[in-house]
């Protein structure tokens, strides 16, 4: 293993550890909070950061720090859910379209064209608006706008893989179509797709926060970073910490997941297998990272 590769591996381990730490923090949040994140106390409103309230209090006297901790769960886990679901849906559709082609391919790809023709966020807004407010609907909206990109990517990988000699050989060995799809096509296409997915976690957190900020995501009393920003924006002049800290939390998380995505790519980059990753990079570059 070269030094570069070893370094990349260590970087990935460290970033994964940080992400895991973040995950544990989310899970343990209700036990870690110094104050009740939902308790309204108007006497304590707009307190600057101090000993009792590390990040200060918001307009209703709720502890910003506690709310960030509790909100992390919603923000991060729903973003992971969005990415996971889009990945699965996109992969299935893209793989089937790419491998079998024909009418199904045409229908789905034209649908993908339509979806990709709209700015993602506008479409998500429209879907969330139609479905009504709520975190679940926000997730559905983001999934609905996110899958076409994965479907398109998966399809293009499958198209090249389908013509590979080893797929041909697997057919010549008498392996069934499903076995080929599951054992050869999908695993080969999945690595670049996982990289794309991990790179888009950050963007999804932002998208979700955006929807919440506009009031289409998590509803009170549920706490979400985006809605914290939204609630606090009126008080930006008097109590900037109300928006600063949730913003910082979003910033750190997005950066962490983006670095993680980069790192996953470096480690998985199969110079030894395929040069497909360069294609992902180029595609993402052309489309402007990230999705939303």
């Amino acid at each position: 293993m070269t030094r570069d590769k070893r370094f990349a591996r260590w970087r990935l381990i460290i970033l994964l550890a940080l992400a895991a730490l973040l995950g544990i923090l989310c899970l343990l949040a209700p036990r870690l909070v110094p104050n009740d994140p939902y308790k309204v106390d108007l006497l304590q409103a707009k307190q600057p950061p101090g000993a009792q309230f590390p990040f200060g209090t918001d307009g209703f006297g709720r502890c910003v720090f506690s709310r960030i901790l509790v909100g992390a769960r919603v923000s991060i886990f729903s973003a992971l859910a969005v990415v996971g679901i889009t990945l699965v849906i996109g992969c299935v559709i893209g793989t089937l379209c790419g491998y079998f082609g024909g009418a199904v391919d045409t229908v789905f790809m034209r649908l993908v064209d339509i979806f990709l023709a709209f700015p993602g966020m506008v479409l998500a807004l429209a879907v969330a608006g139609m479905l009504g407010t709520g975190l679940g609907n926000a997730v559905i909206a983001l999934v609905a706008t996110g899958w076409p990109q994965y479907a398109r990517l998966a399809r293009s990988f499958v198209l090249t893989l389908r013509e590979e000699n080893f797929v041909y050989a697997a057919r010549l060995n008498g392996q069934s179509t499903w076995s080929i799809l599951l054992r050869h096509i999908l695993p080969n296409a999945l690595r670049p797709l996982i990289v794309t997915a991990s790179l888009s976690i950050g963007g999804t957190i932002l998208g979700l926060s955006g929807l919440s900020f506009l009031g289409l995501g998590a509803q009170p009393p549920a706490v979400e970073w985006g809605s914290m920003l939204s609630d606090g924006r009126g008080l930006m002049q008097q109590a900037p910490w109300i928006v600063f800290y949730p913003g910082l939390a979003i910033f750190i998380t997005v950066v962490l997941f983006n670095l993680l995505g980069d790192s996953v790519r470096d480690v998985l980059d199969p110079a030894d297998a395929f040069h497909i990753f360069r294609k992902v990079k180029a595609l993402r570059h052309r489309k402007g990272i990230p999705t939303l």
Partner: protein
Amino acid sequence: MEHIGLLDVHHLTVGYPDGGRVLQDISLHIHEGEIVCVIGESGCGKSTLLNAILQMPGRLHITEGEILFRGRNLRTLPREEVRRLRGTGMGMVFQEPGASMDPIRKIGAQFYETMRAHAPISRREAMGQAEDLLARLDLQDTRRILGSYPVELSGGQKQRVAIALAMALRPDILLADEPTSALDVTVQAQIVEELMRLRDDFGTALLVVTHNMGVVSRMADKVAVMYGGRIVEYGYRHDVMTAPAHPYTRALMDAIPRPDGTPPKAIPGVRTKKEFDYPCPFLDRCPYAHPACRTEKAEKIPIHGEHWTLCNAGFKGGAAS
């Protein structure tokens, strides 16, 4: 039909959907344990012939003729039957070493999958058989190879593993598309030896496509010389090599570099792609062409036993000296 051998190709004509023709009236009979080499230049339709036999049409289109495997017509056999025949009946080795292997799966897993696609088998049993096969192909360290990825092997190793993979189900016939072309000369010779040993050990028939006369002279029982989508000469190796009847075969023999330093002779001219419209595919480049060749369709002319050639002039003009 006459000639029920292991694999019988009768009057096969293959084209592209747009009407372009690739193979014309190919007939070939392979018996069990026989090694048949198909030799010809690039683009003469050698690989297409293999693809047609394997019923992997892709973009090609069989317009006429039959391919019989053990007397069963592959063109009319249900797809599931064809799938079952692949691997157990016919195996395939590619030119590019390792092209038949999935780059991200360990070699052992690929053996296991291939074997399991046809019969229930335990992993341990599959690994045992795989090791045995690899050892027969002169590979050392078979256990380590089964635990490696294709990229971790050298070209020669990969080609051996590919052959072993194709042999995993003990097919009756192994189709090899230029199996040695991408390897260096010493490895080429070893692979040829090993392929012949497989035939001796398992009775596997081989259909080897090549443009290497050395390979033909070492391993072939019978030789089919192809030019412009047709077989222009066919017969036992000894007959074809010592008494080439077709002008193209003779030109090919003259084009082999010789150790005594006489420079090899190039075949004049280039392929015109019009061969299909000509009565004889080699017409444009043939030094023996008669005026009659332009009008009379080249016929199969028997020479001696199974040896025949597709040449009116060569035979009439006494070129088969």
